[in-house]
């Protein structure tokens, strides 16, 4: 099945594939195609696992991670823990195009994005608020903390470190809508 050009992406996000393909067909570069495809998914909030209004953290905030890599030059632009900016892949591209760095994170990445002309806005939606309130109602389960007090498998925080550590690794139940 070798046939170039080619666009391939994880999960059944067909509109993202189509956006990337259209970009290539219109004469865009492979970087343009990846940026357009991922941006489409961010705007569409694919699966709830991409873009604004999904995967709230322990405080209810949605933050975004994105990365783009040029296989010709090995240049990389990436952002992590990006706050208040919807177009994370666009900011990642800007990191690649407008800095000599590879990865910007957190609040500083958001300031960089604003300086590059990206609009700052709330990433919270009714959906993410609902996911968050359900989690609080369910005693903050599932929970990524360990070796803390109170017991994170039963109670919400705030947490303090526990003096004695339990050995071993706990198997986590798979939620196929909660993924990187």
């Amino acid at each position, binding site marked *: 099945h070798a046939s170039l050009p080619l*666009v391939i992406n994880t999960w059944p996000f067909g509109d993202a594939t189509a956006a990337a393909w259209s970009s290539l067909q219109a004469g865009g570069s492979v970087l343009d195609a990846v940026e357009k495809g991922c941006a489409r998914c961010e705007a569409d909030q694919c699966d709830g696992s991409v873009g*604004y209004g999904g995967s709230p953290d322990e405080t209810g905030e949605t933050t975004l991670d994105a990365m783009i890599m040029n296989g010709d030059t090995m240049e990389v632009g990436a952002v992590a823990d990006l706050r208040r900016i919807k177009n994370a892949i666009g900011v990642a591209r800007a990191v690649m195009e407008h800095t000599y760095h590879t990865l910007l994170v957190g609040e500083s990445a958001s300031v960089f994005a604003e300086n590059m002309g990206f609009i700052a806005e709330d990433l919270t939606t009714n959906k993410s608020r609902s996911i968050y309130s359900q989690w609080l109602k369910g005693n903050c389960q599932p929970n990524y903390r360990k070796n803390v007090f109170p017991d994170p498998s039963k109670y919400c925080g705030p947490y303090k470190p526990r003096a004695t550590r339990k050995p071993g690794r706990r198997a986590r139940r798979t939620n196929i809508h909660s993924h*990187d």
Partner: protein
Amino acid sequence: TIGMIAIDEDGHVAAGTSTNGARHKVPGRVGDSPIAGAGAYADSSAGAAAATGNGDIMMRFLPSYLAVELMRARADPSAACKTAISRIKRHYPEFFGALICANATGHYGAACNKVPGFSQFHYMVSDSKSNIPLLKSVDC
């Protein structure tokens, strides 16, 4: 999360990822997606790969980098993906994750780790034969 690979007619390769991460993560947590070699990797002399799943685990094994290096050593994309997944499975048999791989000539494949609730992985492909996005799947 979306992980995407694009290859043009001249063999130029790019890859990218975008995600809002794991639900209910500890604030400040970052997964594999923005880490080159973990969430995705591209090298036009070999190919590209992109990962999805539990980034806390996957980022420890740089599966995208490994898969690209295996393709450079002439492994076919499906085998490269499988080997990278197996490497993680050896240490974390119940990890949730999948990988897509494509070499610079346009051959592609995918692999995933079977866990309860996840036995088949779906991905999308568009190439000059199809000209439209086609849904593909692989059994884990």
